[in-house]
């Protein structure tokens, strides 16, 4: 039902390749979304192990008065910022910061909201040496055990395991012009057809648009985009409130079982 409301707002349907292009534009910034949806955001830094990854913004905030934990992958604003955030590719200590904040949310019975915009986890030398695989693996595993509700919102690129690490949640929503895929269309074309230039073709067969993913039950909701950002943020706030209210009625055991069953269906 929510889908229909969303679809009515789509003026004309973009091709998958066009959605890919749009998903990579700086349409929405992480800090803008956080400040638009929540109040009283207090940023919390560091993973308490090895550092603070600026590409993962985390903290606590109020959702219409209710405390929540917020975790967002950010691509950065200007060139310098983008470089320091590797265009939104988290390091292992970014995922470990997220894990720390998820555990904290669990302790204080706060719902968790994640905002995702990443081409993927950073494929760097230090990232690899510090266990990028382990960091993602643990984020997924620990998310499966959380007894508080968690909703993930992909607002740009949802690149592979690096996105899934923060999307092992009770619900996953996507912005109208976001993508979620096993890898980039360029990577897909280069692996399967040995030709990265066939990326538009790849985008068409990969099923990475919100509409495709909704049909496959990979996501629950498509957030219609609007030039009026406050309108988008108001919609998100309202819907988060409603969904968290419903999810909070479940016992911790029911919640965990339901989350596991959600992924068991794939």
């Amino acid at each position, binding site marked *: 039902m929510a889908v229909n409301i969303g679809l009515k707002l789509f003026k004309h349907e973009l091709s998958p390749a066009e959605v890919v292009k749009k998903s990579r534009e700086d349409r929405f910034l992480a800090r803008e979304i956080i400040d638009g949806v929540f109040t009283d955001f207090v940023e919390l830094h560091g993973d308490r192990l090895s550092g603070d990854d600026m590409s993962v913004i985390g903290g606590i905030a109020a959702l219409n008065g209710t405390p929540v934990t917020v975790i967002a992958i950010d691509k950065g604003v200007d060139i310098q910022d983008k470089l320091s955030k590797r265009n939104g590719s988290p390091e292992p200590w970014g995922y470990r910061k997220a894990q720390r904040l998820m555990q904290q949310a669990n302790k204080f019975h706060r719902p968790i909201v994640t905002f995702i915009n990443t081409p993927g*986890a*950073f*494929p*760097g*030398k230090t*990232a*690899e*040496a*510090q*266990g*990028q*695989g*382990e960091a*993602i*693996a*643990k984020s*997924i*595993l620990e998310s*499966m*055990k959380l007894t508080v509700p968690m909703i993930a919102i992909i607002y740009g690129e949802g690149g*592979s*395991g690096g996105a*899934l*690490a923060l999307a*092992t949640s009770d619900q996953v929503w996507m912005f109208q012009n976001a993508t*979620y*895929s*096993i*890898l980039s269309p360029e990577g*897909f074309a280069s*692996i*399967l057809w040995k030709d990265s230039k066939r990326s538009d073709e790849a985008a068409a*067969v*990969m*099923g*990475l648009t919100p509409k495709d*993913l909704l049909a*496959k039950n*990979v996501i629950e909701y498509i957030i219609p985009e609007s030039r009026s950002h406050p309108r988008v943020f108001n919609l998100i706030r309202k819907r988060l409130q409603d969904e968290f209210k419903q999810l909070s009625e479940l016992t911790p055991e029911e919640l965990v079982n339901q*989350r*596991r069953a959600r*992924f*068991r269906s*794939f």
Partner: protein
Amino acid sequence: MDLYNHQKSTSKIKRDASVNDRIPDGLFLACPYCGVQMYNKQLGHYRVCAHCGYGFRLQARERVDLMTDSFEEIDSEIEMTNPDFPGYADKLARAKSQTELGESVLTGVATFENEKVALGIMDSYFMMGSLGSMTGEKITRLFEYATENGLPVVLFTASGGARMQEGINSLMQMAKISAAVASHQEAGLLYLVVLTDPTTGGVTASFAMQGDITLAEPHALVGFAGARVIESTIHEKLPKDFQRVETLMANGFVDQIVPRSDMNKMIAKVVRLHHKTEV
């Protein structure tokens, strides 16, 4: 104690051709790790490089013969029934006939010495051990089976990562399996991972790195991102052995590197040390 009763007798699978029959003794091979050349027969029973100890890649059915004392397969009928991506059906058919498997993992109940475990062995000869939805289904069922029957899980990983042809469904397997790992963990049961050559991508970023104890075969390649992707990202050449398990162990991600010939005993020993005792 013994929660699981075999419906059929437990017997070691006998196969027409073992690897040592498949490849002629006189064939000259180079070790993929150290490059030293040798005759096939010099690899011996365990198919290990005499020079450096690297274990040559095994098909899952070869490994089960080499390493377990008994094995009974479960879920052998599970396979992809609607491969709709162009060319996918052909690739699957070839992989099936080469590996005698329905998917890229072999699962069942095995004993190591007398220790009964739920065993999974991934097969890098089946579409590079990629994580298809039916691979995920078999591994998930293995954990569910182990949780229901109070068994430890031993999983030999080998994978090139995601199954491109299945798109997002391949990604979802990482979460699906992790959910089953979480339930198994909460039942207080042991999950033992054995990293084998090669274990990369989405498998490394999920169940390969979720074990209570992580063993590895010598010189196995294990990593998240591909070496070439890393090098082109950082514009730098990676040092030798950067993604070999010896480096991972030095970095704190592997408990022990165990030669193939000792693996059966080591698994039995670790499982035995997890027997529930009354205090």
